[in-house]
């Protein structure tokens, strides 16, 4: 939800291309990205270049308090590189 909301802020097609990239290149969905944050990081970078930083920041904000939970914390660590 946090990832979807961050990408949806741009527009639905922006969310669609990231979803599609994840599927085409890594055969995974947005939900699977909690276990494979590197896939999401690559998909965001390939699509939006350095602007991915802003999207990752938005994901962090959307995660709210749950970002301090262990799996989410690990997810963010990899996502932020």
């Amino acid at each position, binding site marked *: 939800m946090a990832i979807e909301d961050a990408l949806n802020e741009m*527009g639905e097609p922006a969310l669609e291309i990231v979803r599609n990239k994840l599927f085409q290149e890594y*055969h995974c969905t947005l939900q699977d990205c909690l276990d494979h944050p590197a896939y999401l990081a690559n998909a965001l970078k390939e699509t939006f*270049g350095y*602007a*991915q930083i802003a999207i990752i920041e938005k994901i962090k904000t959307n995660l709210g308090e749950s970002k301090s939970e262990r799996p989410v914390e690990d997810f963010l660590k990899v996502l932020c590189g």
Partner: protein
Amino acid sequence: MNPSIDRIKDNRVLIFSLLGIGFVILISNVLGKDIAKTTSDFIFVPVSGVLLVLAVILAIRFKGKKNFGISYIFFACFSAAWFAAELIWMNYEIFNKSNPFPYVDDAVYLSGYIFLWLFSRFYLKPVGAAISKKMLGYAFLAVTVFLVPTLYTVYLSSPSSPLVNILWAGIYPIADAALLFPTVIAMMLFFKGNVSFLWSLMFFAILLNIVADSGFLYLDVDKSYSSGNPIDILYLWSYVLFSFGIYSQIKVFRKQKMKSYKNLDEFK
């Protein structure tokens, strides 16, 4: 199709379009001033029309929703404004009507700049957090580099011309230079991303407009400009670059084959 092959093919069409337009305008100049004038008038309408069609396609794709959707609506408004201005200009030229001051086509052209600035504003809004001070510095530098010579050009323009004419012609290069600010930021921000091609082409399109508008300023203040002048090539090229930039966005954001998601379980 392989994306890199696709990109090479698109780039070939882009280069061919630029060369083709340049060739047609130059040949028409060799054939005579009247032929050059008519050729130029008739090329501007379809070239700006193609940009409008592509911009509308993209705006429909995003349905005007969220930041990108709003930004593409503004881009479509910009394209519509410049297309309308080209039609008005052609109407004056073909039917030899007098173009009363303040010029209607100029007002429509200038409104296009506002829409283009709003397009950049909304496109950058969701990724604003990634804009660094360094990027702002480079963008400011780019604007200064192009604005200073432009203002100098305005200052050096024929002193015998009425001040209002010089200022009117000087608005364009100044508006172009102001547009460079968000464009340079976006170019750096989306660097290496799939969406970056639009901003790179937009950057060059604006540079072409700055050079063309500065040249037009020189030619217009002493009334030596007429349609078909080789300087028109730069304006036409900027339309082509804008069009290919928008086309690249259509390809990036084209409807994805969602049926493929149904097969996800088979992959796992």
